[in-house]
């Protein structure tokens, strides 16, 4: 309203009023504010939400109407002789006798006709009134039902609105939860990782492409070996010293395959590739070992999130080989498992065999199999791998740490 074209020296009230009215018309037609719309909606809703408020009068009227008995309207029959009738015979006779004289004074015929017509009209009106009352009752029923249904619809609409709000808020909460989880599971670079990028360019990435192939080949070879030469594999297998196995705590047990297998695992890819890749030296192996440790040293997601039990599984094995490389950290979460699996079974020597077990344990993340040094055959471990992946056993840092 502040945009009036008025000047101090020429205020014209009629013009201003015209401007205000124009503004009101425009506002009414187009410019409902959000608040006005809400108010209108609220008023309507309130009415509907209070069924008693809607139909109180109607109900009262309805009841009153029903309580009223239809009034019997008195009627009369009026014929030609009605005017002169009497229950006394002589009087009636006398009236008939004097009728001609009476007609000298006035003409009773129009009166008789009018009353006769009126009698008929009364009858017709009575019938109409009866029909109207029946119709009124129907109308009242109809309106009553309509109001009930309208009220019910209003309440339904309100309920649906509330449910929609509830679902929206739940959806929003879930989205926020998902975002929070994504933001919590972040990569924490360890000191060992700092030197990694340079090597990734040189070796890891090229290795990684080969690993899958080698892994396939390795699995094929292993299964063949297991089937054809179980005894020889047993012979190749170098069991850990008994005192180490006996003295190891679960965590230590979990760590043992890594310590046992990680050392021979690194040279395996090279040896598996045969002449294609030269064999690694001891320095390379140790570097690779350190790199793996460093890679796993970031801790599991559960540890990062402070999940219960995460602290009890500090070793990479207990935290699971699948969970150690975090998504987004290296791009492929299961590369290490494949990597190690691929690198394990390449050699026909005993350490690679142990490494194969270790990597399988690593991939399956089952500490029980880490104690497998006691079991002479690694074949079951390799066979159970797919099942264990599909249904990981309960244990610290297993399923919980998997961000997927």
């Amino acid at each position, binding site marked *: *309203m*502040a945009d009036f074209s008025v000047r101090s020296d020429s205020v014209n009230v009629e013009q201003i009023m015209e401007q*205000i009215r124009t503004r009101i018309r425009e506002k009414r037609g187009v410019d409902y504010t959000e608040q006005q719309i809400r108010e209108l909606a609220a008023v309507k809703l309130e009415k509907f939400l209070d069924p008693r408020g809607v139909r109180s009068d109607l109900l009262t009227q309805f009841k009153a109407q029903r309580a009223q008995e239809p009034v019997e309207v008195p009627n009369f029959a009026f014929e030609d002789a009605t005017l002169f009738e009497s229950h006394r015979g002589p009087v009636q006779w006398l009236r008939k006798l004097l009728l001609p004289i009476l007609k000298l004074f006035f003409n009773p015929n129009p009166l008789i006709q009018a009353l006769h017509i009126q009698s008929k009209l009364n009858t017709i009106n009575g019938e109409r009134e009866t029909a109207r009352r029946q119709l009124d009752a129907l109308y009242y029923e109809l309106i009553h039902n309509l109001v009930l249904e309208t009220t019910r619809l209003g309440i339904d609409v309100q309920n649906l609105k509330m449910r929609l709000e509830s679902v929206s808020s739940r959806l929003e909460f879930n989205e926020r939860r998902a975002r929070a989880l994504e933001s919590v599971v972040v990569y924490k670079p360890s000191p060992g990782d700092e030197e990694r990028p340079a090597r990734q360019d040189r070796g890891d990435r090229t290795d990684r492409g080969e690993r899958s192939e080698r892994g396939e080949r390795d699995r094929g070879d292993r299964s063949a070996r297991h089937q054809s030469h179980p005894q020889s594999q047993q012979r190749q297998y170098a069991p850990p010293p008994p005192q180490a196995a006996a003295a190891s705590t679960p965590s230590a047990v979990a760590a043992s395959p890594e310590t046992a297998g990680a050392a021979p695992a690194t040279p395996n890819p090279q040896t598996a590739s045969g002449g294609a890749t030269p064999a690694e030296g001891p320095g390379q192996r140790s570097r690779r070992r350190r790199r793996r440790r460093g890679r796993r040293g970031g801790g599991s997601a559960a540890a990062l999130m402070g999940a219960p039990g995460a602290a009890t599984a500090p070793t990479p094995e207990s935290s699971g080989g699948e969970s150690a490389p975090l998504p987004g950290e290296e791009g492929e979460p299961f590369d290490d498992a494949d990597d190690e699996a691929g690198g394990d079974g390449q050699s026909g020597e005993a350490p690679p065999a142990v490494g194969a077990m270790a990597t399988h344990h690593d991939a399956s993340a089952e500490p029980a199999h880490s104690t497998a040094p006691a079991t002479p055959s690694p074949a079951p471990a390799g066979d159970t791998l797919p099942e264990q992946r599909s249904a990981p056993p309960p244990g610290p840092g297993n399923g919980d740490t998997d961000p997927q």
Partner: protein
Amino acid sequence: MKIAVVVQRYGSAINGGAELHARYIAEHLARHADVEVLTTCATDYVTWRNELPAGVEPINGVPVRRFRVKHERDPRVFAKRSEKVFKQRHSFGDELDWLNAEGPTSPALVDYVARHAGDFDFCLFFSYRYYHAFYGARAAAGRAILVPTAERDATIGLSIFQPLFRSVRAVMYNSSEERAMINAVSHNEAVPGVVVGIGSPVPTSTQPNRFRQKHHIRGPFAVYVGRIDQNKGCAELFDYFQAYLKDPAGKLSLVLIGNSLLDVPKHPRIRHLGFLDDADKFDAMAAAELLIMPSYYESLSMVALEAWAVGRPVLANGRCDVLKGQCIRSNGGLYYDNVSEFLGTLEALEQNRWLAGSLGRNGRQFFRDHYDWPVIERKYLDMFARLSNEAPRPAADPLPGWFDRRRQDLPPAEAVLAQLPTGPAVASYEAAGRRRA
């Protein structure tokens, strides 16, 4: 020159519109002539009970002669007769009975006027609708000047008053709308008349801050001054203002000054201060952003004139022709016909300070030009001078005889009222302005 002012009630404590009007006129004319006030012993306009002693007493230097009222008003009889004359076909006698039932019936006052009319040069009769004016003007034929203070209600449609308007020496109108209405109903254009109105004792300076401090009022506010009554449109004002309060952009509060016959809504931004003296009233007006006048029926709103006198705009009910006409003629106020217009005009006055200031200045100028006391006094004195030089008009027609009084041939007063022209008399005002120019 000796002037008689005849009015239904009179006194310093009586603040009714016509009564206050009469007192102001009497006191101001007393500076130029010998003025005597003739009135009744009643103070209550509903019962007309005799509450003051009969006789003469000076009030503010003006002698006041009081006469007893013959009987109090019987509300039941009055309502029954009102129903008859306003809504049904009726007779002249019915209207006289209605007038008698309305009161204040004081034959002593009329007798005194009849006996002593010759002692006065002119007799000013206030409020055409009452017993004293109808019979007194006939008794003082040739010297009677009528100040009708007529509103647009059904009473103006009664037939007994048409000869009254035609038979007096002059009519002092309050507004152009009133004049147009009386001319239309009685065809008394030949009777000398002038739109005078009334002034107000406006103080030379006001103290708005004193009022704010005294009544603990902060922030901008709109003020209503007058009786808080349904008949004054206050119920509608409350509804409209509560609609305004829903707008978060609106910052105005409503301050009500006057005795309340109506429940005032409980809201922190609606304050009822009760009856205040003149100083507080003018300070309140000066402190307010605007004055709201919601009344439907006004012959002249003194409060609106007072608001203009202190330079404040007025927001008036547009369905009151007089108020609307005054707003248009003065360019000193806006008016509304419905709640949308009320909100729109209130918003305009609140947000556009330039507009509000311009309207206030125009109103002040309008007051100075037309309602300042020297102007009012001059108009009365000019009229007296004019009438002194003119031959007196023929006496009023005698009242109908026994048979004519009982002839049921008069239309309902409401039907007569409905046929009268409506709307503000702006055209006639402009024409008068051109004639003066």
